[in-house]
């Protein structure tokens, strides 16, 4: 239902004209959001693993089912997606000047695919949604993007494709395994938890899945598509890309790669922790030297997603909850940052930091909002970014104190580049005459920024309800991993204790 609604509305958008498409898409995203709130209301954290399950035979010949279901992790990510939906729709005008209805149509199709990806319980279905996300994004960047949009969009597409085709082969291999063991096809992911895959096979399978996911995250050194795609994408595209699409990669690890192949996960842990820390520091350092605001924010994503990965590879409740919390808050704060960059860009049509300076005196409200979002992004206590980051660092300190210290420098660097950017844009002498009479935030811009700001504060002050939904699911997956793993790996990972 949640998938179909935006999909149908999106397809409708293609055929109606611009004037009708706007209210239609806004209504569709709002209703979707309301429905997902209902979902939250009805979700019982202590209940069964996957709730609101739907399952329809799709391709019975291969045992493929249209199976959807959510646990706490996917619930929150779906909420994030549906929450950003209306925000993006509102931000589309007047930034998008050509073919607005097609733009909104693709946005809605994208939203449907993202929700589907988060809710898919069937590996085949997951793959279909995963790929389906590519097409709208490809058009969004390619048609409505900046100057080098074509290069960026093709790079984005090919990168993702390489990873996902190998993942497809791995999915098929799993299929065959299920056939051999149980004599029937099944693609339900829950059937593969604890199927007992030989260690060698796990390594290959994990490799194939992890490559696809690590490209999407993106982990250093597979991140190079991200700055291009971000810089060239239209504002709404960037928001969705940073806000939700990147989380597909980390979600993939949580739902598929790690619980299905626990032994391989343990074996690869040092590598992934190392790459995460490199990503954190590298992303921060590169962000520091950027002249382009959007590129700076893009590299900050590399750094922040490094934290998420670090948390996930800590294998304890704290690290995981923190990582997932960080996914959510990164979605909010980076989404907000991209929107704010978009606000400036609409006024001045440049993203060069040096073009700005002293904006605070002409746009005080803007300055306030940007400061708040920046604080959230660098993890100031009381705002959302802090909770996730803190939990991640706590969790990973238990596992690898030295690496965690390395990562902590990333936090410091994060504060440096963000604040430096803010300083250069907002403060200092106001000596560029073109900036002298920029209008402050309009009512429309307030409309889509306020919900984000509210959430940033709420998630910072009251993490309880969110964590309460997360933790049972997290514990369940970690418990599964531990019980399905060889004793040797379990000892390495959990030190013989329950997580």
């Amino acid at each position, binding site marked *: 239902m949640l998938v179909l609604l935006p999909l149908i509305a999106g397809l409708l958008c293609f055929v109606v004209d611009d004037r009708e498409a706007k209210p239609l898409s806004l209504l569709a995203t709002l209703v979707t959001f309301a429905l997902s709130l209902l979902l939250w209301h009805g979700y019982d954290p202590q209940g069964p693993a996957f709730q609101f399950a739907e399952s329809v035979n799709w391709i019975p010949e291969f045992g493929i089912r249209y199976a959807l279901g959510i646990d706490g992790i996917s619930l929150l990510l779906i909420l994030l997606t549906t929450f950003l939906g209306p925000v993006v729709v509102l931000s589309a005008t007047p930034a998008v000047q050509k073919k607005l209805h097609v733009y909104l149509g693709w946005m809605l199709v994208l939203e449907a695919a993202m929700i589907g990806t988060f809710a898919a319980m069937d590996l*085949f279905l997951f793959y*279909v949604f995963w790929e389906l996300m590519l*097409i709208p994004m490809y058009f969004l960047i390619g*048609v409505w993007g900046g100057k080098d949009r*074509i290069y960026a969009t093709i790079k984005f597409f090919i990168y993702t*494709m390489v990873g996902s085709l190998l993942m497809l*082969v791995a999915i*098929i291999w799993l299929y*065959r395994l299920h056939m051999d063991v149980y004599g029937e096809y099944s693609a339900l992911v829950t059937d593969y938890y604890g199927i007992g895959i030989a260690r060698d096979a796990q390594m290959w399978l994990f490799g194939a899945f992890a490559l696809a996911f690590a490209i999407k995250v993106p982990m250093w050194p597979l991140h190079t598509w991200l700055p291009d795609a971000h810089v060239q994408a239209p504002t709404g595209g960037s928001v969705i890309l940073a806000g939700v699409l990147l989380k597909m990669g980390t979600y993939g690890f949580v739902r598929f790669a790690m619980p299905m192949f626990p032994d391989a996960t343990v074996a690869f842990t040092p590598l992934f922790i190392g790459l995460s820390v490199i990503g954190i520091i590298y992303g921060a350092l590169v962000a520091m030297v950027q002249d382009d605001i959007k590129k700076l924010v893009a590299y900050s994503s590399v750094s922040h997603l490094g934290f998420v990965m670090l948390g996930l590879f800590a294998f304890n409740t704290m690290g995981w909850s923190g990582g997932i919390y960080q996914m959510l808050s990164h979605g909010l704060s980076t989404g907000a940052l991209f929107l704010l960059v978009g606000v400036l860009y609409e006024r001045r049509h440049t993203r060069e930091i040096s073009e700005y300076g002293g904006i605070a005196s002409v746009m005080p409200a803007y300055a306030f909002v940007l400061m708040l979002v920046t604080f959230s992004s660098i993890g100031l206590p009381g705002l959302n970014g802090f909770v996730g980051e803190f939990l991640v660092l706590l969790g990973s300190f238990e596992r690898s104190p030295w690496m965690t210290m390395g990562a902590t420098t990333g936090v410091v660097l994060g504060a440096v580049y963000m604040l430096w950017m803010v300083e250069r844009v907002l403060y200092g002498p106001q000596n560029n005459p073109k900036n002298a009479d920029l209008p402050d935030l309009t009512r429309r811009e307030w409309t889509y920024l306020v919900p984000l700001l509210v959430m940033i504060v709420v998630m910072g002050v009251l993490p309880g309800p969110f964590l309460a939904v997360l933790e049972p699911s997290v514990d369940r997956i970690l418990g599964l991993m531990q019980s399905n793993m060889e004793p040797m790996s379990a000892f390495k990972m959990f030190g013989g204790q329950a997580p």
Partner: protein
Amino acid sequence: MTTGDYTVPVGLASDLFRMAPLLAVFAGAMAVMLIEAVVRPTDRWLQAGISGITLMFALGLLVLGPSEGAATAFSGMLRFDAYGAFFNVLLVSGALIVVMLSPDYLQSIGVKVGEYYALILFALLGMMLLALGNDLMMMFVAVEIMSIAVYVLAAIKREDSRSVESGFKYFILGAFSSALLLYGIALVYGATGTTGLDGVQATVAAGEAGALLYTGMALLLVGFGFKVAAVPFHMWTPDVYQGAPVTVTAFMASGVKAASFAAFGRVLLVGFLGSSTEWVCPLWILCALTMLVGNVAALVQTDLKRILAYSSIGHAGFAMMALVAADGSGNTEPASALLFYLAAYTIMTLGAFAVLGLMGSEERDTTELSDLAGLAQRHPYLAASLALSLLSLAGIPPTVGFVGKFQLFMVTVHEGFVGLAVIGAISGAIGVYYYLRPIVLMYMQPGEGKVLEVSRATRVVLSLVAVAILAFGLLPSALLPFCRVAAASLGG
């Protein structure tokens, strides 16, 4: 022997009765030829109409006609089974689409030759026989019926040097490969004393197959490799595809390829069943090479027809994965995947060529990539249907191309050829790049171009193709049972 209201006669009459769809096509071809003598040369709609009606009639006979179990006819020369019927439906539908596209295209490039339709029908007859052939000699004759008509079709633009070159090149190389095929058949006959596939199978099953038989088989591989455009026997494909008129290229890419695969599959899976250890290795190499070369070489092309030519090579490679996987363990899944993929490929490649066909004109019958620039502004629906066909060729869900590729990977991995599947996945990822380029041009770059006239027949074709791509992509179960039955009918 009764089915429904029919009373099926026995003996020769029954054989002819089963042949009814083929006879209908033959009669249609003759009628078109005869009419050519009496109508004015400017008025070609009559021939197109007759061909269309003939094909619909044949399709009706195939779909509604009696479908009792598999049986051989004409002393074992042909075998009427679900496998052949599946291909015949596919081939006739493909030809019908080509015929629907032809009148406008021929008019736009100034070809006023009525024999065109007769040649299409004759070639189709050869293809249908090829799909039914149960004897190597019969197959050879069918290949020749098909090929000779297609040689002429490729060169049908007599005044255009490229079209003539295309036909000539195809003829020379085709004749060469036919000779190899024939030589292979001779060696097989020498080794087994028969050209019937069942007889060959008996020898193989008895374990009496020797070097002579496998030398013959190697030559057969080369011959069929040429027909399906497998690397390294693919050299003719780009030039011939580029030079031939678009509708003929579409016919070659869909019909000739599907029919050749039909025969290829039958020879390997019936005649040489159980000897897969001997041929799986060379076929593995051919398949991997074909996928890689086809997809890599397409990257640097700037002509759409050449891109689709290399794409057709790449797709032949994908389809061959199913043959590699069909190791003769009695598992019919690989054959079923092959059938599904060929059906999918026929649909999507015809969709792509249908749009290309609109772009030609009498002065300039080329299809440069740059001609596509800005097409989405001028013709949103044309651009959308071409984009859909290309995405399907690239194997992106939720299109039929994805489901087809998924099944191929599945059977390949299933039979333990994980390496081949990985090569396939990498080639597929490479292929995505050149399928995206036309889409980029159409949607993301401005361009001036002439406004195209789209006839009703073309519209119907494009809508049908688009619906089929999405419908079979979302609900493959609509097509799968047919593939399974057809694949199962091979053995029994």
